[in-house]
């Protein structure tokens, strides 16, 4: 029974005057570093960013300038990733495409998360008609095949360039997050500190920005991280079919589109871009997963507590014993949930 108390690790709020033992930021960082996947993901992301933004300075070739002496050349010392049909350097192109895809992914995730948190918090906080109207909008946009709309509208936005494409992607990427923020807000609304603020006469928008949003921040951080990966995937898929980034601009999607038909014969035109795309999204997902566990150890990611529980459970099963006192005590060693 003593294990129960040992299991709860919540740092007690430090009394004023004394230095705090462990801050939340440090705690989260420590948990994040303990997760192997997240560390691998973070290292990968750093490397990819270095490649995307430092890569263009490493090679003498420009992504657009053709080298007519080398057409369809396999990777070599001069052209690290080989060249394409008109002699453009695939390394320079891939690096440039990666850069574009990363920027688009980050911007889309940022915009859609901001939109989602605003709509979700307003719907949840105000309730009533505002809630019903906003949720109808969310459902409507979920029913609506966003891909169809993007493909229909994007040719008209060709002149406004890739920023318009970013906004379009963000516009169709916020709904599910908004739903979650809404349901979290509904339960936050009834909490004492929010009520107290309300009774003190704090205006609703200020309550939302000062009390609601900071409390859903953990979820938003994780969600935005995952959204970066999703946005990059949508961007490449749309660009692949010519509805997103267009030549002469390059992104990973346009590179994949150009390399597809040649992949069986000239694999370097396709697989470098494909590998970088998968690596990047994988790294983002790993970080997102690690962040989720680090920010909220009670979430159903990979809680260690089950490890002990499972072992004891299987031990009971193999011995085929009726619920004995020993198995009971081993099970109650599971630390209590710390959710309020």
């Amino acid at each position, binding site marked *: 029974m003593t294990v129960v108390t040992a299991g709860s690790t919540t740092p007690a709020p430090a009394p004023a005057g004394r230095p705090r033992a462990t801050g939340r930021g440090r705690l989260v960082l420590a948990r994040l570093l303990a997760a192997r996947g997240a560390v691998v993901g973070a290292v990968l992301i750093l490397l990819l960013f270095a490649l995307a933004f430092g890569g263009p300075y490493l090679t003498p070739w420009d992504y657009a300038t053709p080298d007519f002496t080398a057409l369809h050349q396999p990777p070599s010392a001069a052209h690290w990733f080989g060249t394409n049909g008109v002699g453009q350097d695939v390394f320079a192109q891939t690096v440039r495409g990666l850069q574009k895809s990363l920027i688009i992914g980050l911007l889309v995730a940022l915009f859609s998360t901001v939109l989602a948190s605003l709509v979700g918090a307003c719907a949840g906080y105000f309730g009533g008609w505002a809630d019903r109207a906003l949720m109808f909008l969310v459902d409507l946009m979920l029913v609506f095949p966003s891909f169809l709309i993007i493909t229909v509208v994007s040719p008209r936005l060709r002149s406004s360039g890739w920023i318009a494409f970013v906004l379009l992607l963000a516009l169709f990427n916020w709904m599910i997050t908004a739903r979650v923020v809404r349901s979290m807000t509904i339960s936050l609304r009834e909490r004492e500190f929010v009520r107290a603020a309300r009774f003190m006469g704090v205006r609703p928008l200020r309550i939302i920005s000062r009390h609601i949003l900071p409390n859903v921040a953990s979820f938003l951080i994780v969600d935005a991280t995952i959204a970066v990966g999703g946005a990059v995937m949508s961007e490449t898929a749309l660009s692949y079919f010519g509805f997103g980034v267009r030549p002469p601009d390059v992104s990973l999607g346009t590179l994949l589109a150009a390399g597809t038909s040649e992949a069986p014969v000239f694999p370097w035109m396709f697989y470098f871009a494909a590998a970088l795309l998968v690596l990047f999204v994988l790294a983002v997902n790993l970080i997102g997963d690690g962040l989720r566990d680090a920010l909220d150890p009670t979430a159903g990611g990979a*809680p260690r507590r089950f490890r002990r529980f499972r072992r004891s459970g299987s031990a009971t099963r193999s011995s085929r014993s009726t619920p004995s006192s020993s198995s009971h005590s081993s099970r109650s060693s599971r630390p209590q949930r710390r959710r309020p």
Partner: protein
Amino acid sequence: MLRYLAKRLSYYAALLIAAVFLAYAISAGALQPRTYFDAKLPRPSAESVERQLTALNLNDHTPVVERFGHWAGGLLHGDLGRTIHDTPVTDDFGRRVWVSLRLLLLGSLLGTVLGVVAGAWSAVRQYRLSDRLLTVASFVLLSTPVFLVALFLKNGAIAAKDAAGHEVIPFTGYETPGLTGGIGAHLADWALHLLLPTISLALGGLATYSRYQRGIMLDVLGSDYLRTAEAKGLTRRRALLKHGLRTAVIPMSTMFAYSFLGIFTGAIFTETIFGWHGMGEWLIQSINEQDVNSVVAINLFTAVVVLASGFLADTLHAALDPRVRS
């Protein structure tokens, strides 16, 4: 339960009407059928362009609401309007819908069922080798867009063909043209053609569902009622199947409804890559041809399918969770 379902159904009907109107307005506003006729050779007279546009209900001089009214009036009689080539949209629709549905249903069902099973199994075996392998595999799959999976599979099939000297697994179309033989030969041919597109669709679903199911199942595994069920004398397997899995599947039913759109989007890529003449290929083609009526018909199709799967999810939810019914 019927009351609850009726309420959901009326909500979905409102959503459907709003979604279809919005789809119509956006398509009619963004696409320009006029340019299609203007680009024809020899160039038709302005008057005849006008006449053809009006006949097809595509004239942008008519207000959108009026065009929508005309289109909706036809819809009530089962008429989806005419394509830009002046053929009935319903002809194309009828031909392509079965091609797509075959792929969609098989892909989503396979992905969902296998994903739920894999996730639950992986949760029960948490931190063992099989769980770790499945986690790694699902992470890699989750990070690969569907079109890339499809391309990898297709490239693999091409490589296999080059290595073997003949086509091992078909990678274009949904049947061998001019195939002779009985019904058995045709079915086998279909199944073989379905193989790669279905795998590429199902893999994404499998990865997503298995991750979610694993998380939910882990929560359920630690719950008190499962321990109670075991304490009452149920074997662990029975407790897991009867009490654990049932509760763990409930949140998944909601996910299923909304993930259908993702699967449809994936199918657009898969169809185009594997050369299936389905709805996805039709969409890309009709957008390039500025064919408003066809685009709207595809929108209608997806909206109906999504809402139908939403309704299915609600029914499933109500059947599994008695609290919803009241």
